């Protein structure tokens, strides 16, 4: 009887805790969305100051020049991200080292070499 009461109390507490976590998560997510909205709405105003020379030279480079700088961001990004993911996936493909432990003849050779300590 006591055990079942304790178990029910634990379950009730867990449910309350889960509900609290859900509410907190929703609150954090809502706050994050609000922050993102504020940042989006004020983005263009924050560009008012900056390096005059950079701004002028980019502005003077014409439509094509400005587009090239914007596209350049993607040109830098895409290969780097692709290669990063490719190397990680290569590691995952070889997740289990298949190479057997070299034994026998090679070990005998290395036993001789091992006398050359780096000390």
């Amino acid at each position, binding site marked *: 009887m006591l055990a079942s009461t304790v178990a029910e109390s634990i379950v009730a507490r867990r449910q309350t805790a889960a509900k609290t976590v859900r509410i907190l998560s929703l609150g954090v997510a809502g706050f994050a969305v609000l922050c*993102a909205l504020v*940042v989006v709405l*004020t*983005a*263009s*105003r*924050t*560009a008012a*100051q*900056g*390096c*005059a*020379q*950079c*701004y*002028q*030279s*980019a502005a*003077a*480079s014409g439509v094509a*020049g*400005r587009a090239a*700088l*914007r596209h*350049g*961001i993607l040109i*830098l*990004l895409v290969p*780097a*991200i692709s*290669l*990063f*993911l490719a*190397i*990680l996936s*290569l*590691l*995952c493909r*070889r*997740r*289990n*080292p298949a*190479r*057997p*432990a*070299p*034994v026998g003849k090679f*070990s*005998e*050779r*290395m*036993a*001789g*070499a*091992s*006398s*050359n*300590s*780096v*000390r």
Partner: protein
Amino acid sequence: MSSNPSASSAVEARSGARPGIFRRYVFSTDHKIIGLQYFFLSLAAVTIGVFLSLGMRFHLVWPAARLPFVTGGIMTPEQYLALVTMHGTIMVFFVLTTAPQSAFGNYLLPLQIGARDMAFPRLNMLSFWLTLVAFLVTLSAFLVPGGAPISGWTAYPPLSGMGEITGPGEGAGQSLWIAGILIFCVGSLLGSINFISTTIDLRAPGMTLTRLPLTVWAWFVTAILSLLAFAVLFAGGILLALDRVAGTSFFLPAGLVVSGELQMHGGGSPLLWQHLFWFFGHPEVYIAILPGMGVVSHILANFSRKPVFGYRAMVLALCAIGLLGFLVWGHHMFVSGMNPYSSLTFSILTLSIGVPSAVKTFNWLGTLWGGKLQFQTPMLFALGFISFFVTGGLSGIFLAQPALDTSLHATYYVVAHFHIVMGVAAIFGIFAATYYWFPKMFGRKMNKTLGQLHFWLTFAGVYAIFMPMHFVGIAGGIRRYADASGASYLVSLQPLHVFMTIAAFITAAAQLAFFYNFFWSLRQGEPASANPWDATSLEWATASPPPSDNFAGQFPRVYRAPYEYSLPAAPQDFFPQHLPSEQDAPSSKGRSC
């Protein structure tokens, strides 16, 4: 090029010939010797880098003082900027990149994965020698007419691209700087290829991905970052060199008038250099700090006698930080006048790095929670790393906002932020690694009392330098100014500069305890056993220091995860990776070490 130097070792073994001292210690292909060479190179570099920073701090407080090492006695603003440039360059490239990755990674990666050596040992030797040449070429900028360059470690054009007309140091000094960095890039690229190949191909049997120590994961992700980031810096450096010597205009805009003369360049964009540089520059921050994260995770588990809390989450966080590191370089350019919607994107991506960083921090705390903590010197430095990482990370959140960054960008606030999070945190990771693996590398332990003295003086000293620096920045203290006496509102910040300078000298003096401890312990330190910290990873399965083939002719097989501490059923409170338990030790599985 042969990828197997053991062939020459085998010949030596058969003939009984012992390689000469040059072959063993200078032009060695042994990853351990190369790791030590990198370590001593970075030790020399950090000594010079700290000396330069003390010169800067001294000048900021006593600008009219005569200094013995300065041409003319009193430091000019240009000489101050040369110190700024060379301090940043030496510390970023030859200390923060070289020590955690190239030195400790080279020494320990093959040992921790159960390999005999790196995949391409001769390439490895070439990487070191290129790095040494790069260091000497960069330093030689001090010796040429005009002295070292004044364009900062970021070498922004047009200042860095026009030649000596733009100021002292921008002639031969800047050319040597570019040459040094290009050589360094080649060395780093070769090193990265080696790290990636070794980790993928040379792991011992049983060393699956979830059994890799977090240090190995960190070095692996860092190697990918190095490979991709230094390639872009190399390309940018070539273009900058062409602007200087071949009359091209990749980064030089039209209509520039310097010293009253209209320059003949035209059509280039300084913004392009900024994109190329910071595409390297931001991953460089993670190249400096990720190995430290791996080291700290490794050390915390050892001295908490607990498995790393959330191992898989730690690995994912490392990979996420590495990946996101390539997406955020634009936050260094919020004031460059780039498209405001690009700034917005970079801002949100920058803030998102806080998620994996927080995962790592909470997992470190989770590892410590309830552990049997042992406050050995490496553990103290690992805890110091976490403290600085969190402090510097929190100040970074503000800089990730374009609106706030606009006013803080050119101030000491940024200097304080990146010194704490990138410089000092990474250096605490290096110190932790040095104290932790010194017994493995040299067969002796470092002195604990001196180590703890070194930790507390440095820890307090660093906060004494950089916490006031935040306030100087918020109050409008402008960075890179050699003399603040010209503006009344800057003069009122001078007492804080005096305090920071005194703290800097005391902190630098505290490093003498480290140097004394290091060199004294090489000869006089207490002899260390093979596994003095009761640790679990494979490097502790071999002698201290390890033999030339790492495992004395035997090849370890891995049976378990890397951080098996305090297991209820284990006979002792740690279970090394290479020891089979009764149920998984059939002889057919291979020889264990």
